[in-house]
């Protein structure tokens, strides 16, 4: 009975994790440029992977394996953002222009006002 409850709980966590990983993958395909794709991927990286690992912790029961999974989760959460930051910084350095909304930057807003004053379209 306990085993069944545990398996169901673990299953719920695993399927929720799978849902967010898939959502991240769909987002990777739907987003228009590198930076927005990274935002989509980070859903899978954080919530998706965390839920998966929590589900596995329930499956493993309380053993040393549980602890290793917790370590794994901690390392992923500490090192994932470092890699994301490196990728984003490198892309910007290499001249990838992020696609921004019309009011995306203060600079572009100022430029737009200036060109509007001159009576041109931005």
């Amino acid at each position, binding site marked *: 009975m306990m085993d069944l409850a545990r398996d169901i709980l673990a299953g719920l966590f695993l399927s929720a994790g799978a849902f*967010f990983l898939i*959502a*991240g993958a*769909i*987002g990777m395909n*739907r*987003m*228009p*440029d590198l*930076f*927005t794709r*990274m*935002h*989509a991927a*980070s*859903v899978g990286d*954080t*919530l998706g992977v*965390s839920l998966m690992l929590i589900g596995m912790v329930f499956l493993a029961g309380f053993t*040393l394996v549980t*602890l*290793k999974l917790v*370590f794994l989760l901690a390392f992923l*959460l*500490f090192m*994932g*953002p*470092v890699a*994301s*930051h490196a990728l*984003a*910084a490198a892309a*910007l350095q290499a001249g990838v222009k*992020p*696609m*921004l*909304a019309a*009011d*995306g*930057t*203060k600079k572009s807003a100022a430029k737009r006002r200036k060109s509007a004053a001159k009576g041109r379209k931005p």
Partner: protein
Amino acid sequence: MLRTASLALFLFAFWLLLSGHYTPWLVGAGLVISILLALAGRRLGVADDEGHPIGRLLAGFVYWPWLAREIVKSSLSVTRIILDPKLPISPQLFHTRVSARTAVGVATYANSITLTPGTITVGVDREQGTFLVHALTKASAEDVEAGDMDRRVRRFEGRAA
């Protein structure tokens, strides 16, 4: 010296938890290696406040649960955007002020911004005390600029320097 001892202790605990074999030989070898590594770290200058910020551990137990909640919240909102047929994004690139001053605080804040889906720290300018942040939507950009996370990292960082 206290910090080196604590580093050795953490390394030894890590060894014990990962190995799972508790024969005198393996435990003894782990102890010796932990101490040697801690001493090497001290000599290389990585066992300092930056490399082993043990004093921040308790503050971390206050900060991390809050961060976990933020991650869940913003994951849900980004998921909603992804699954929305209209894909309602409004990407932003902006500078935000950082009040953390120590290396540990700045790194924690930058990582926390990147870790929450919907915002990425693209650049760190420690002289100006600003981050360049890319956000998926205007709402997530405003969340960062509201500075709630900044204040919490400041509290996590401790010391009023």
